[in-house]
């Protein structure tokens, strides 16, 4: 089955990004495809490569990047939401790309299921 994921909250502040990541990982491990993860609202902050958590904490941003690299998950950051919050190509972490809201609509159209994580 083809899943689309939506993440509406930034890393660390809210559990949404952790939940979305663990769901995505479980979906892939169970033979499903996660076609795209769309980051909206403060969720765009998951894409900042300037993120530096303490060493004993999980690295939420790198975790997403690794998932994109290993499983070809398309990580899309909403351009309007990103510009509002200072996320641009120059501080975009690996595996993410910035694009329009149409990519979210496309997830809804193309995926069998769309699962949203937020506050």
């Amino acid at each position, binding site marked *: 089955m083809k899943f689309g994921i*939506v993440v*509406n909250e930034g890393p660390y502040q809210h559990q949404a990004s952790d939940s979305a990541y663990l769901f995505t990982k479980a979906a892939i491990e169970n033979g499903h495809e996660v076609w795209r993860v769309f980051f909206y*609202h403060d969720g765009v902050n998951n894409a900042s490569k300037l993120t530096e958590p303490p060493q004993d904490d999980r690295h939420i941003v790198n975790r997403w990047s690794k998932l994109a690299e290993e499983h070809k998950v398309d990580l899309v950051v909403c351009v*309007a*939401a990103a510009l509002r919050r200072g996320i641009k190509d120059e501080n975009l972490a690996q595996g993410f790309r910035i694009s329009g*809201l149409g990519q979210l*609509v496309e997830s*809804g*159209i193309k995926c069998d299921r769309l699962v*949203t994580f937020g506050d």
Partner: protein
Amino acid sequence: MSEVKKFMFVNRKAPYGTIYALESLEVVLITAAFDQDVSLMFLDDGVYQLKKGQQTKGIETKNFSPAYRALEDYDVEKLYVDKESMDARGLTEEDFLVSVTVLSRAEMGALMDEQDVVLSF
């Protein structure tokens, strides 16, 4: 894109306190531009989004409520308001800046079941 799905946007949050209502409206407009079958549902504090007469000058924030009136230009005409939520907030249909269909909770639930994609922010 030729495929048409039924998209429902569930709005349960009041405007201005957080950005969700504004950014959700942006998704609604884009979804309509993709020629999808769009409905909006206003539940709980989400009904406050539609209140007439929003004056945001004093909080130095853009008043985005006129955009709800522009929805019909995008052929988005299915706006549903939960009666219980409206009543609980001392509001009536006359308080809204666009015309809406007022439904019971049960009718809202049934409508939700008919959708292909349900999005809430």
